[in-house]
């Protein structure tokens, strides 16, 4: 299992039956593979779909049916289509239960930066800012560190924010960390790591509960 599959598999366990969820690009798009069948989970796609299914098998693509990343997708029973204004009414109006998003940086206050590296990478905002600010619960799925090994979980974000104080839970290949009013609380660690290693790879203070932590 790749580290991405591991993160997606753990993230899928956060979804409750009947919830409306949105999946950002990258790791979040892998989450549906790990959702149990028949739980009535509604996947929202920014381009105007509620009830999106898995990606199409080769040869069954419909030129009029894609997700927000351009991939050909299927539908679940009860799916609906709508325009882009209504699509974000659903998000901003409080009808989106969970948004799974990627991250460049996350602060100990739950601030999220994931849309711009000034002077280097500025492809636009997309739907991420509204998802981060208005979803009822925001779960970040990301690698624990950058490709260069720098921690992504910091005391303060250095990059321009997507939204302030929006993150509820951080799921990485090493740990599950909850954002609380008192700070970051380590909830679980991966089978192949240790508390010391997680602490060493995190550039913010972690509250560590007494006793053995659950593993995933």
């Amino acid at each position, binding site marked *: 299992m790749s580290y991405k599959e591991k993160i997606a598999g753990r993230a899928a366990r956060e979804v409750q039956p009947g919830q409306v969820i949105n999946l950002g690009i990258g790791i979040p798009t892998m989450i549906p593979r790990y959702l149990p069948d028949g739980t009535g989970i509604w996947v929202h796609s920014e381009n*105007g779909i509620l009830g999106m299914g898995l990606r199409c098998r080769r040869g069954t693509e419909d030129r009029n049916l*894609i997700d927000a990343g*351009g991939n050909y997708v299927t539908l679940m029973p009860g799916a609906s289509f709508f*325009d*882009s*204004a209504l699509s*974000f009414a659903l998000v*901003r109006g409080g009808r989106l239960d969970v948004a799974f998003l990627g991250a460049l940086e996350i602060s100990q206050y739950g601030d999220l930066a994931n849309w711009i590296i000034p002077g280097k990478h500025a492809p*636009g905002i997309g739907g991420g800012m*509204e998802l981060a600010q208005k979803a009822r619960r925001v779960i970040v799925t990301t690698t624990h560190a950058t490709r260069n090994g720098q921690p992504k979980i910091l005391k303060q974000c250095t990059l321009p924010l997507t939204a302030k104080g929006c993150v509820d839970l951080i799921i990485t290949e090493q740990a599950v960390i909850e954002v609380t009013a008192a700070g970051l609380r380590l909830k679980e660690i991966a089978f192949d790591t240790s508390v010391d290693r997680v602490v060493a790879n995190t550039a913010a203070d972690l509250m560590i509960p007494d006793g053995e932590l659950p593993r995933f």
Partner: protein
Amino acid sequence: MTDKICSMEDIRKIFSDGLTVMVGGFGVPGTPFILVDALLADGAKGLTLIKNEANEDHMGVSKLIEAGQVRKIITSHLGLNATVIGIMNRGEIEVEFYPQGILAEKIRTGGSGLYGFLTDIGIDTILKEKKQTILMDGREVIVEPALRADVALIHATVGDRSGNLVYAKSARNFNPIMATAARTVIAEVEQVVETGVLEPDQIHTPGAFVDHMVEITELTQEYGILAHHVI
């Protein structure tokens, strides 16, 4: 209502330098590639485009930008188009980014004859810079002006001769809102039917919003499946 079907030659007369043009579509679905090709062939310059994204490299509105016909694009995300990102980074085109739903809402309010709306989206970010803000219910909110265009280019699956339009699946996206928000609204449709054939309950855009319609006789390759998005 009069018959709104017209020829591509009639459409070309509408295009001119300096127009602000809204273009429907989110990726391939709903992008009016044939109308965009007509604008490309016309050669109108100094255009301001309003579109969710710039399509992918060498497709749709990307061709207008690559041909140097576009002065500015008002958009949400260019992530799937490295060519246009390069053009932007070299400063050859002005780009104005909005959160996707805010862009949609600017168009919706423009189409509804309103001046704008109030939002807290981006209030704690660099998006607030240079924006007018006011206090509403004790909270600071951004005043976001409405957006209208000279021309809207729309793609629909079926249209009747009176301009009533039906969109298909995720090809709906920005099309119905853009169809309300321009002085001149031009729709390309894959199939024309006689007025009265469409069930009133089925119609997504009422004909009153549509000025001109062209029938697509053959879908070009751009409307097809993109191999790199297939598993």
